[in-house]
């Protein structure tokens, strides 16, 4: 993979890319969009037993201006969708979204008139986590998957060479 990259991008941009991606992935500050039951499991992930700050998510800032990743935890209704989108728009780039739980990913067990069947209908999602609610270990796994995805991000490469992001299958496990 490294040989391939050497041939496609410049040597300097890939080294800089690695440094920038390493810095980004190890300091992902989450924006907890805690809406319902999954929010309690998210709080449990931040609690001393499961400790999300080991992975760089040191603080859960509740202001979107200082956050990198928005964890949408809970059922999103049509009334709440406008608010979620607004918060997503207020986050500065680069930003990612983790859709935590069955309700955020696909509407969950609530197939009714007021629940949006999946937040990917109005925000772009990077990682989906299954579970109702997902155990804290599952949320940590999602964070690590997101970190793998960021690792392979062509930050400067995209800027200078205008290429698409390509994630090799082998790195996602």
């Amino acid at each position, binding site marked *: 993979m490294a040989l391939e990259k050497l041939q496609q991008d410049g040597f300097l941009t890939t080294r800089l890319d690695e440094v920038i991606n390493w810095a980004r992935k190890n300091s992902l500050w989450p924006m907890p*969009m*805690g*809406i*319902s*039951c999954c*929010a*309690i*499991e998210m*709080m*449990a992930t931040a*609690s*001393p*037993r499961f400790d999300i700050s080991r992975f760089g998510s040191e603080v859960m800032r*509740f202001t979107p201006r200082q956050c990198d990743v928005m964890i949408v935890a*809970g*059922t999103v*209704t049509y*009334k*709440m969708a406008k*608010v*979620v989108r607004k*918060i997503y728009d207020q986050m500065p780039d680069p930003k990612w979204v983790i859709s935590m739980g069955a309700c955020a990913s696909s509407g969950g*067990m*609530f*197939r*009714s*008139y*007021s*629940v949006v069947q999946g937040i990917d209908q109005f925000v772009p999602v990077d990682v989906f986590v299954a579970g*109702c*609610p997902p*155990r804290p270990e599952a949320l940590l796994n999602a964070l690590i998957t997101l970190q793998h995805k960021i690792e392979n991000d062509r930050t400067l490469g995209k800027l200078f060479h205008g290429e698409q992001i390509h994630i090799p299958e082998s790195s996602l496990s």
Partner: protein
Amino acid sequence: MNSRSEETRKSKILAALEDQDTSVSVDDPLENSMVLNMGPQHPATHGVLRLLVKLDGETVIAAVPELGYLHRGYEKLAENMTYHEFIPHTDRLDYLSPISNNVAFAMAVEKLAGVELPPRAQYIRVLCCEMARIASHLVATGSMAMDVGALTVLLWTFREREKILDVYDVLCGARFTTSYTRIGGMSTDWTPQCTTMLEAFLAEFDKDVTEIEQLLRTNRIFIDRCEGVGYLSRDQIVGLGLTGPVLRAAGVPRDLRRDNPYLVYNDLDFNVVTATESDALARFYVRIAEMRESAKILRQALEKLPAGPFRADEPKRVLPEKGRTYTKMEELIYDFMLINIGVDPPVGEVYSAIESSKGELGFYIVSDGTGQPWRMKIRSPSMTNLQALPYMVKGGMISDIVAIIGSLDPVMGEADK
């Protein structure tokens, strides 16, 4: 841009805010008021609660809460599925103490169908409800303290809560949303391993709660922020229909476990904790004392737990044991009918309530004789408790709103159904 402000001005909720009685006297009126939106996404609102606050400087003149950001349509969903299928949905109502919702719902359906529980099942339900009460109060006191500024308390209470969730994990397979009860009993049996874990938890619990309380008992900042804040007189609280620790902190000793006993609370010895000051600090201490009472109940129930079946033996109403379903013909047929068509209740209406950690959690079921309810209404204590919010915050400061919401302890999954 123009149309957005038009929309805001014509909004009915803003009109409701403006219409409210604003006779609050302030020391130094600025002569112009500001409307602040504590939006659905806010660190201190315990979920998605929107609060429109009219301010004069820092003093709150009026407030209007708006619900509905988590309205998932439970009651409509209930009309379209059998009683058993609705049990996982009840978990997600008061998501801080899921097992007590399961128990409340199962009790309502059993009252309707006329199913009697064996004693072991009743004791197991009492054990689960009291553990759920402790877990919920731990989160409530932890988040109230965190909202006021004492972050350590939340981390310590979550550490205690993890021990209870471990017991649930061994008992039902899920740490959190358990779906543990079935109509007529429980899904699996209480094992000796659960007893060992629970006894280990109880051995240290009193000491841990005392430790947590010592952090705050003489803390001048905590007392100043919570004492006298959110006061409502006893008559106002009863008139508004509040229940739970909020009502007990106003001096009314109403506890459904004592007044209209259900399950085996008749045989257990515990005190109903009341206070008289009816402010945020009193509610906080009522919750801490209730945790100690729950620990007392747990010790007694563990001693008295009888042997026997954990599910009633009524084949047409109660799911048969899985081992027999896989091997015997009649049980297979009963299982099939119960899952597909549902429990066979008579035509009628019942209301059944339990004392959950937030207040009176009740289910009103109208049945038309089929396996699906015709109407199911969930009486959620958090929604009724939130009604008192505009009365409590009037005249206080913005920072008091946070302490008051914490002391009311609303759970939006329940309030919005």
